């Protein structure tokens, strides 16, 4: 099993049109990520790392190339099928936390289960225990605006974990946090990897990237 990558990208290209001008953001990415790995993808802004993350996270489709997910070709999957992969196998952590502002921490954590077909017993209990593990026991019923940045990111991590995905995909997870909080959040992410999650972190900070076992550098749409 270990020799089948959980994510395998073959010659992935992505271009956007700005007006009539075609801009190639990814210029042929080949990448294999194995289960339980921890990988940092590092690059300057404009390097194409966010586009790469969106494609790996099944939020966007490549212009050309092949995407194998757990050995299965999902290149031509439709919107609904990609939604199921995002729901079951990928937990996102974003720079801006992206919590829904009008529901409390607990409801934000439960959100991914709303769209899940697989039955989960005691969703609420599970969400509470996830939040408790992340030190958010006293903040269950707070709205995101009543939480600090670090606390919001903890809620976001709990949300990423609720459906037991294999992969945690974090896009600049510490980008909006101070140094101390950043290192706390990184500790949490690293410990998740130690407990068996595949961890992919997109960042431009080498200090953050160094917390991962493997670093991939991306520049001008290519891995270097």
């Amino acid at each position, binding site marked *: 099993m270990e020799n089948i990558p959980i994510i395998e990208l073959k010659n992935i290209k992505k271009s956007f049109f700005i007006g009539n001008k075609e801009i190639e953001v990814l210029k042929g990415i080949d990448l294999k990520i194995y289960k339980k790995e921890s990988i940092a993808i590092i690059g300057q802004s404009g390097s194409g790392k966010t586009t790469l993350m969106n494609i790996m996270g099944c939020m966007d489709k490549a212009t050309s190339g092949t995407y194998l997910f757990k050995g299965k070709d999902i290149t031509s999957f439709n919107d609904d099928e990609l939604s199921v992969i995002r729901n079951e196998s990928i937990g996102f952590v974003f720079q801006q936390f992206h919590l*829904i502002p009008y529901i409390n921490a607990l409801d934000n954590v439960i959100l*991914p289960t709303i769209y899940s077909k697989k039955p989960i017993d005691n969703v609420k209990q599970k969400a509470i225990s996830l939040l408790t593990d992340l030190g958010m026991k006293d903040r269950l019923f707070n709205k995101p605006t009543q939480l600090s940045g670090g606390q919001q990111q903890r809620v976001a991590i709990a949300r990423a974990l609720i459906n037991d995905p294999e992969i945690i995909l974090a896009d600049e997870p510490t980008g909006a946090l101070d140094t101390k909080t950043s290192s706390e959040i990184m500790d949490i992410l690293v410990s998740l990897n130690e407990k068996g999650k595949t961890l992919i972190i997109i960042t431009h900070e080498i200090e953050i990237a160094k917390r991962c076992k493997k670093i991939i550098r991306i520049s001008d749409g290519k891995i270097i």
Partner: protein
Amino acid sequence: MEKLFKIRLLNQAFKAIISYSLRSFFCLIGIALGILSITLIIASIEGANKKALQLFSDFGPDAILIFSGSEQMRTARIRANTLTLEDMNAIKEYITGCYETIPMTPVRNMTVSYGDKKWRTLGVGSTIEYFTSWGWRISDGNSFTQEDIEQYNNIAVIGQEIVKQVFNGDPQSAIGKTILLNNKPFYVAGVLKERGISFGSMVLDDRIIMPITTVMREMLNERKYIGAIRARFYGDLATKINDVVELLRQRHGLKGEMPNDFTIRTAEDAKQFLLVLQGTLVLFLGITGSISLIVGGFVMANLFMISVQERSAEIGIRRAFGAKKHHIILQILLECIMISLAGSILGLLLSFIAGKLIIAYTTIPIFFSHKIFWITALVATSVGVISGLYPARRAASLNPVEALFA
């Protein structure tokens, strides 16, 4: 599982409605006003139908009313005297199946005075059969008798409206009193039981019944002509009407092309009259109701379009965590439907209040039946779906990446 899922989405929609309360409120008001009008339309149609049915049975489906004067003269409000007691007796005698005839002579704008109270009402001179034939019961005191008719007695039976206006609503206090009718003293023998029905601007309870003989001789100084004849028949009413027309034409010496100098009305005509009256209201409310529902729907569609743009991050988040397009569509639709259902409940409540006011201050019949609930629920759901559909599809078509990072 599927059911559980729907409840969860419903819950999400509900939370969104509560958080975007101002948006929800405006949508809700628009829908409520539309539903208010629609509900009143239905209630007034049902009220009219119910009243028409009542009127139909009050008038008597086997009865006709013959007035003096031609159709044209009646429309022009020219009063003519053409019917006589002899005409009435002839109908009873010669038309087979005729089992009852009653003469009636109106005294329009008759003044009633008692003490310092004054009132204008409709006086009716008739026979003792008047009460049973029209279904009037005596609530207090007695009717006048055949003897009163033969002796031209100044005796009257008054309606509840008179009791209300002249005797402070106490029927017992009216019995035995002497009132002045067009300045002639009349003894109050009895009070009619309340009907509570009105007929356009005419309140049925606003009337005073007197012996026809007294009315003709004492009040109108009329020896020959009577105002109207009520006749009831066994058998097919249409053929009886033809027989009556023929008989009266012959008696009045009308030949060939000459128009009838009398007019015949049936329960059917009375019903028509009421429905025409109601028609104006229905038209008015129908137009305003439809307009406010359309406007309400547009307001909702518009506000949701803006809302979808505002909430694009939320939609992006939901998509990132596995929401399919139809989940997003369903949530927005559910929000719209819930708002319009809430609006329709508010509209219903308002219409109950408005209905009470209409009943209290106008003569328009209003009747709320269970049908109204189903119709408003249906209308509200359709408005919700129609106005939510475009914003919902727009929301679902947002690219998750663009929605998140916009």
